[in-house]
């Protein structure tokens, strides 16, 4: 499999994150990680091992204490907060364990929030939101309120929101953590389906079965990252 920089969405080199404090917490020890376009990377590890820390760094929500991060060929280390915010908004889609939907706004409006902070026309934003909801199988629930939806439907709305901005990378922190197993299964099916359409996904879980959905799995233990397996050559 090739690991040419052109194909890499994410390239972490010696990236580490230490939280200040007494004593300081070495949440992520220096690690190297390359995520290729089309990868479905699952991250496993016990609670408090540093999974979210890694995701925050990849998602430009946090800055590493050391090391370099190249996203889509751009070294994001030296960029200021404004530029990083713009890249985050355009290149990265987030899916949260707790969905993070506005409960009293219809699904469509929630999805349209993804493009709210862009200079795109309302018509285009509407079209992309409809398309994304259609993509997650919720075309018929466009006007429904999240407060009236099931957990699975809510997470689908959240996924649609993450996709509506047409990102290079989908970051999911325990997306099935709040769902029952049957619903979780169908949401994971959706992720596999999206990945088959070429969307790059990073998914955090502490469940080995869920981890097996990815084509690659990395394990974090006490902030140390090890690659466990690569199961197919689809991404190469």
């Amino acid at each position, binding site marked *: 499999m090739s690991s040419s920089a052109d194909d890499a969405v994410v390239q972490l080199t010696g990236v580490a994150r230490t939280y200040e404090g007494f004593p300081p917490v070495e949440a992520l020890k220096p690690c190297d990680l390359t995520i290729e376009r089309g990868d479905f990377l699952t991250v496993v590890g016990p609670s408090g091992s540093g999974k979210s820390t890694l995701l925050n760094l990849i998602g430009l*929500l946090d800055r590493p204490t050391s090391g370099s991060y190249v996203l889509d060929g751009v070294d994001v280390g030296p960029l200021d907060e404004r530029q990083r915010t713009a890249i985050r908004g355009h290149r990265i889609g987030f899916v949260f364990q707790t969905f993070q939907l506005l409960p009293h706004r219809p699904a469509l409006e929630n999805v349209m*929030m993804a493009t709210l902070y862009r200079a795109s026309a309302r018509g285009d934003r509407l079209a992309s939101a409809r398309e994304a909801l259609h993509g997650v199988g919720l075309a018929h629930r466009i006007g429904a309120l999240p407060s009236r939806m099931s957990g699975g439907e809510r997470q689908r709305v959240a996924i649609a929101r993450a996709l509506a901005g047409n990102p290079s990378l989908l970051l999911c922190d325990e997306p099935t953590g709040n769902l029952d197993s049957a619903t979780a299964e169908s949401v994971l099916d959706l992720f596999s389906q999206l990945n088959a359409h070429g969307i790059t996904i990073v998914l955090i879980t502490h469940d080995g079965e869920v981890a097996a959905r990815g084509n690659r799995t990395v394990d974090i233990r006490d902030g140390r990252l090890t690659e466990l397996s690569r199961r197919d050559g689809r991404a190469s």
Partner: protein
Amino acid sequence: MAAFVAVLGITTTANSQIDSRFDALSSTQVIVEQQTDDPFLDAADFPDDAEARITGLAGVRAAGLHWALGANTRVSAQPPPAGGRDAVGTISVMAVSPGFWSATGVSVKAGRTFDAALADDRVAVVGEGIADQLGMADVGGQPAVFIDDVPFTVIGVLRSADRVPDSLLSVSIPANVAARYWGRPDPPARMIIATDVGAARTVADQTPVALSAADPDHFKATTAVEARALRDSVSSDLGVLFLVLAIICLVIGAVGIANTTLVAVLERVSEIGLRRSLGALPRHIGAQFLMESTALGAIGGLVGTSVGTWCIVGVSLAKSWTATLTPWTVVAAPFIGAGLGLLAGLYPSLRASRIEPIEAFRR
């Protein structure tokens, strides 16, 4: 905001109420005094035909002179030998010309006042309280009152005298008679003129000349306009007080909005984190909360205006006042509310804009 509008509205209502009361009494009244500090014209006084001269002016309804007799004047209900000295000083004596009664619009409880026909007779009109004090409930029996041992026939008892409350506590006798027995007025006489509505100013201008063409400066005529200056100062004090009250209400309102917005910010940390993760810059977040607090203030202003207006109407009905509300207050209230909301939202918005996107994951 409701409090703000209500307080301002009640102030205006109260003010206009004060206005109308002052106006009812003052705008048809002129008072003429003598400039006693004029050393050369010490001897001048109202001419004998003063009343006739002034009544002849256009717009004058009635005019009358009055002065108080010296404090040593003795008043008694008993004839001289038995005349008690005990009443001295407690009852004052006023000399009034016949026109005085119609110029001051007194109301009579019993009997009558004296007119020009009785102007040279020893008659007296007493206030209600004085009548009781002198033991003359009824004037039908023509009771007498002795002033420095001179007998006067009491022909009337006054019930009220709004413009000259003094006369309720006095024994009033005809000016001509007073001048005959006790000499020139000291302190000097004053004249009260009742005019048609709106004529007071003109009458005041003409009066000094009418009384003394040779030396008009001797007489000083004042109208309600001067009284208005006093009224203005009273009601502006009142206005300042109410305005301070209104401002305190505003400050409380602003603190309320600031608090509400701050709580909203803290409750919506994860929403803020989400928006930041979707590409919102800190200033987008700040602007959002600033707009929300401004809208809150504007809505508060609108609701407050209507609630406040109803309060004013309610208070006015209860007090049977005429509700007065300057349109300015009503129109400006929503804008003041919005401005206040904007101001109150500054700090919470700043706080909101500083929340890091990473917060979204922590919940």
